[in-house]
């Protein structure tokens, strides 16, 4: 029987199609729909998409080429000991798959992505390319003032690119649009944490990925439709354990890896995939100075990840323990991309904190094109079994 347009199957299929489409057809169609439209790409972990939206441009999340992209040119630019996301991103650029992107933003996440910003400048000199720095000092009068000025520079750059001013009014309206999007993202995550059998992570992942390529308003509607559809659907609960997945905030794992973890008996009840969707933890005030509001939200109410400095040792890793407690998780899976400095340097610190709290964990590495899932399935399956046995004891 064919799926109705708003059925879970249809929504998930649409997200899957967007995920598989390395030509970014939807984003190209958006650009072609009206003259003068611009598209600005961005990489993980976070950029203030509100500014791009307020400039009437489409923010386009770039997360590498994934498992289905054959990397030929990209490998010629990188040594074997560097992760895969910059190679496949360059491959996207060199093969013309991003030729419609008028701008590219490279946020602060690590030295590889930072240096990729310079490579982009050299290889694609006509593209508006910016390394987007964020403060590691979280005092309003120090890091806050610096960040407001960075936001102002980004705004000016986008104004020049678009040939039009970005007014405070437009920015406040965009903040509201993104507030609604973030509310829905939180709702989907909360729903999954409460009933993971109804919203499997492989679906939630695709739903969140769709937010990278669709206009934000469409993505928000898609999440509403998904929630309505899965709530109405009867899906069986399995005897799975509940885990938090950590370390996959930049280079993404293959979709099969997420499916493999679930098939091995683990419900993922929290994760750090695509943090940009949930970076700001609450609504950003839509009145007053929009840049100051975005800065304040970044300093005081943004997600924790290893790309940020944690000034207080007592706070280190607390977010992960809180996530485990609040989501009722029984363990943590550390899944980090090979050669990922932020995730791999952070991991021993987080593991020490979990150990101190008696929270079990396992660790493995992946690349976006990892093909062999059997070892992951076995490891995750053993972890799930040990949690169940341990809990029963």
């Amino acid at each position: 029987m064919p799926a109705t347009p708003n059925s879970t199957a249809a929504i998930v299929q649409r997200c899957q199609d967007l995920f598989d489409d390395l030509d970014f057809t939807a984003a190209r169609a958006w650009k072609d729909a009206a003259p003068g439209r611009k598209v600005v790409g961005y990489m993980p972990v976070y950029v203030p998409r509100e500014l791009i939206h307020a400039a009437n441009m489409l923010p386009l999340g770039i997360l590498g080429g994934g498992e289905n992209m054959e990397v030929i040119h990209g490998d010629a630019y990188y040594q074997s000991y560097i992760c895969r996301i910059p190679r496949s991103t360059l491959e996207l650029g060199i093969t013309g798959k991003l030729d419609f992107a008028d701008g590219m933003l490279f946020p602060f996440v690590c030295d590889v992505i930072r240096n990729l910003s310079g490579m982009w400048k050299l290889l694609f000199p006509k593209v508006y390319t910016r390394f987007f720095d964020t403060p590691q000092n979280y005092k309003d009068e120090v890091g806050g003032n610096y960040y407001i000025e960075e936001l102002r520079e980004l705004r000016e750059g986008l104004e020049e690119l678009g040939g039009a001013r970005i007014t405070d009014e437009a920015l406040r309206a965009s903040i509201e649009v993104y507030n609604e999007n973030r509310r829905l993202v939180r709702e989907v995550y909360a729903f999954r944490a409460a009933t993971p059998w109804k919203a499997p992570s492989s679906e939630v992942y695709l739903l969140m990925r769709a937010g990278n390529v669709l206009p934000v308003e469409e993505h928000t509607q898609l999440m509403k439709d998904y929630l309505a559809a899965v709530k109405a659907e009867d899906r069986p609960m399995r005897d799975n354990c509940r885990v938090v997945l950590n370390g996959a905030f930049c280079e993404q794992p293959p979709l099969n890896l997420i499916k493999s973890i679930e098939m091995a008996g683990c419900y993922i009840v929290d994760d750090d995939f695509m943090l940009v969707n949930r970076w700001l933890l609450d609504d950003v005030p839509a009145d007053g100075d929009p840049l100051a509001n975005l800065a304040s939200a970044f300093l005081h109410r943004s997600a924790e990840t290893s790309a940020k400095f944690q000034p207080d040792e007592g706070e280190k890793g607390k977010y992960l323990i809180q996530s485990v407690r609040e989501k009722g998780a029984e363990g943590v899976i550390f899944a980090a991309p090979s050669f990922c400095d932020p995730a791999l340097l952070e991991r021993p610190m987080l593991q020490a904190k979990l150990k101190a709290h008696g929270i079990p964990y396992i660790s493995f590495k992946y690349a976006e094109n990892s093909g062999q899932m059997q070892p992951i399935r076995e490891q995750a399956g053993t972890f799930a079994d040990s949690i169940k046995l341990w809990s029963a004891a």
Partner: protein
Amino acid sequence: MSTQDVIKEASMLKQKEMIANNYDLLTSTRGHGRKVASTFVPGNLNELIMCFDMLNNLPEINAIQNGMKKLSGGYITEAEKGGHSEDVCTYVKADLGMMKRGNLAPNGKPLPDPDLLLLSYTGCFTFMKWFELLRAEYNCPTVMLHVPYQGDGKTTQNMRDYIVKQLKEDVIPTLEKVSGVKFDIDRLRENLRRSAKAEDDLVWVLETAKNKPTPIDAYFGGVYYIGPIFTAFRGTDDAVEYYRLLRAEIEERMRQGLGPLTPEGEMKEQKYRLVVEGPPNWTSFRDFWKMFYDEGAVVVASTYTKVGGMYDLGFRHDPDHPLESLADYCLGCYTNRNLPQRVDLLEKYINEYEADGLLINSIKSCNSFSAGQLLMMREIEKRTGKPGAFIETDLVDPRYFSAANVKNRLESYFQMIDQKRRALASAA
């Protein structure tokens, strides 16, 4: 000449004595009571640290010392056994492993736990995680100085203001608190004045490599020349004296028409003039160097000797603008510059130092340096017409130094330069 007969010039003896004294001070804090700040080479605030009578301990330098003494391999294994990934920086693991094995300084005595981790965050992501890891071990105060990256190839007033504010509101108050010494800006000015004097002499020395033959090797010799100014001595009388001695020695070498000193004596024949990008390998430093001088290859300019400050582009610490000057210093360090700036610099070096080509020593541990180097090499070849070559080693992990591979690559590269010369000669 055997390696036992290495010639020691006055500047070398002076530096050796400075390093030994510093380690003696560091390992005797119980006696004299001075506080210790651990910090990094790029964005090193030595002049400021000295204002608080504190000592400066640099984990990168300890890792280098351990690399050269063949101790780092064991330390890295120790850290990996403790759960640190084989994929991450070996400076970090050498440091953590050294701590697990008693934290012994080169003088054989244990280093004290730091009283402060001064996280001068300039040009390297790993620094941030490194000191978070150390903080968990030492449980001591940590203060961050975030230096923004020159993403657009320039510094802005916003970046400078941000650094100065951090110095005023976080770094200096923390140093005061830890040391119990009140900040005196005039003392900082004096230190900066001495820094600038030493910096003048260092630049003079590095630029002598424009001569043919060059009296110095600006990479293998260069790492010794930058030693005092990149570490615990910038702003001291000792550093001024060291660079005065060094300059006099190089002047004398030039007067006599001598080539650079190597561990096996004076380098006689200079067949290839190279610019080198990237840090050296430390675990086989002497063997690595020998592969060059045996073939008559001399390095006339290098980027590694700029990680702790880009003095040859004109920057000097300025006593009249002390905090702003520290900000400009941090912003300008080599790995805080974007890739187009780095390519421009290499092109300038190739041209101004009349080099035969660019050699990149790509370091597994260091993504800050390494990510993008293959594109840099292509750009330089395109812009200068000079051949580039690429070798891969590591900083202090002996598992990643394959002598035969490196030697093969270098020999092929020198042949390539010869061929290029012959082709040019026949075209003329």
